[in-house]
């Protein structure tokens, strides 16, 4: 199906935020609710102008709590919906991300990572929301989080995120950092029919005794408001009729369904990229803009004869555990490089047979490849930052 008003196929020079907004329209997003926050505001601004052009709806909410609730409401009325924010707003959204998880509501949340904690440095880069993207909301959830490292990927992964949201029926997180959002690069847009767009699976009719959700299958259709299903959308632990329950057996069954639908399909979700890892003795793990730095480090390091490679998770969550494990058996050491004080390194260490070192970069600046290369060439002092004061 061709929809007029989408971005023209061909080459464009646009920012990551604009690419995200345009990709959302291609993916079928027709509802956006958000609250302005640096560095993600351009997504909101772009969609405020673009959504009405394709018959979509835009609302600037009173806060991020309301924004997240509103996109869940719109999703349950049948529209593909999205919001975008940054750290402080992402913290506010966590409660309703949990609502999206338990009620299996598809939507996309873009969290552009800036420096933190709290207000931090709004205009500067950080990668401190990695753990929050998985463990931000209370209770157990399996997160699907994508971390692009270029504007092209910001575009492509936004479409993927919408597709995953529809397929797995839950909020999906886009986790670019500030640099990717604000950076302008070349993107190549394909013809609209070349993109695979996953449509929403919905219940078309239901008899009174029919189940509302089938916990025994991973992909059950969702009921939409106003279609005569008379379903109950429930934030409480609920059974297959959608009715609340205090029973731990029902909770177990529901959780088994919610977590299982991601865990069982982990292989078709997980995406990653390897660079010069075949004979690497030192393996760098990096994501987002840091991976671009490390690509340069690997290139220059190889020129100097260092056997060094890069593993880049594209899906930060689900964690590419098996891939890390496999590589860790071959390399002598793994260095996790991230613009925070050690987050992803925990998961890497948990899944690595090789010793894992951490290289922290303080939020606010993109690391310099020369400095990184110098410190890799020397044996690294592990967890330097954390221990300096104690000694």
């Amino acid at each position, binding site marked *: 199906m061709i929809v007029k008003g989408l971005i023209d196929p061909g080459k464009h020079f646009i920012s990551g935020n604009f690419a995200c907004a345009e990709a959302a329209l291609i993916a079928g997003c027709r509802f956006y609710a958000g609250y302005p926050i640096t560095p993600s505001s351009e997504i909101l601004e772009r969609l405020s102008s673009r959504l009405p052009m394709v018959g979509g709806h835009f609302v600037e909410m009173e806060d991020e709590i309301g924004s997240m609730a509103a996109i869940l409401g719109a999703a349950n009325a049948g529209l593909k919906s999205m919001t975008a924010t940054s750290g402080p707003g992402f913290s506010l959204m966590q409660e309703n991300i949990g609502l999206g998880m338990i009620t299996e509501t598809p939507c996309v949340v873009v969290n552009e990572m800036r420096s933190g904690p709290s207000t931090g440095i709004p205009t500067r880069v950080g990668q401190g929301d990695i753990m929050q993207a998985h463990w931000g909301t209370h209770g157990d959830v399996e997160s699907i989080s994508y971390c692009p490292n270029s504007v092209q990927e910001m575009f492509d992964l936004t479409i993927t995120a919408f597709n995953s949201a529809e397929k797995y029926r839950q909020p999906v997180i886009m986790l670019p950092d500030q*640099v990717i959002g*604000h*950076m*302008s*690069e070349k993107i190549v847009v394909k013809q609209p029919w070349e993109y695979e767009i996953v449509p929403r699976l919905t219940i078309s009719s239901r008899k009174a005794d029919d189940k509302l959700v089938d916990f025994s299958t991973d992909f059950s259709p969702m009921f939409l408001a106003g279609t005569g299903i008379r379903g109950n959308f429930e934030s409480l632990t609920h059974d297959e009729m959608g009715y609340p329950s205090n029973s731990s057996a029902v909770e177990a069954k529901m959780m088994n369904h919610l977590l299982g639908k991601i865990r069982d399909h982990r292989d078709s979700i997980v995406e990653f990229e390897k660079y010069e890892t075949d004979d690497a003795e030192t393996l760098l793990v990096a994501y987002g803009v840091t991976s*671009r730095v490390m690509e340069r480090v690997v290139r220059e390091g190889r020129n100097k004869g260092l056997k060094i490679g890069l593993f880049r998770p594209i899906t930060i969550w689900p964690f590419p555990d098996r891939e890390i494990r496999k590589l860790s058996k071959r390399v002598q050491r793994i260095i996790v490089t991230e613009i925070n004080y050690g987050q992803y390194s925990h998961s890497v260490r948990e899944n690595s047979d090789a010793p894992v070192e951490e290289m922290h970069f303080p939020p606010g600046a993109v690391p310099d*490849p020369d400095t990184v290369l110098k410190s890799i060439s020397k044996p690294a002092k592990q967890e330097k930052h954390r221990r300096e004061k104690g000694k």
Partner: protein
Amino acid sequence: MKRKEFRIYGSGGQGVITLGHLIGSAALLDGCEVAMTEEYSPQITGGWSSADLVISDEEIDYPLVRNPDYLLALNQEGFDSNIARMRKGSAVLVDSELVDSSDAPGNGKSGEMSHAIIMGVSARKIAVSLGTPNSGNVAMFGFLSRISGIPTKKSCMESIKKRFPKRAEENVKAFEKGYDAGGKFE
């Protein structure tokens, strides 16, 4: 063409980011890879703003600018705060009316030579003379194209027309004037 780094620096309102976009989309038309990052002060008007571009034939890994090959300084602050990082073989393009480059190292007065070549045209004056005082950035665009050849003049024209569909003519004029003014350094 190997990786080249550009830094544009000026005051808010001078069209620094717009100039970055013009250069970027023109380079794209030349078939290059481009990565542009931007930064600005918290004040919307009256602060500083800068745009950094990396242009290359190859895929760009590290997307940020460390040592610019070309610095476009549209105000004094832009010149002063960046001149120290300019290396041998790099070029500094200034709006000679707004930037006093006489004190700069490498200009003969100071003992240390930066080896960067400093060139200036009166971009703002050109813009004012054309009756479009805001098109100083486009005049600098012409200047850059003349000096560096990146992007090519043809692509620059195209990117101007795409960017300013309604005000293409006046902007093309500003570009031409800047381009011509750059001729004196050849």
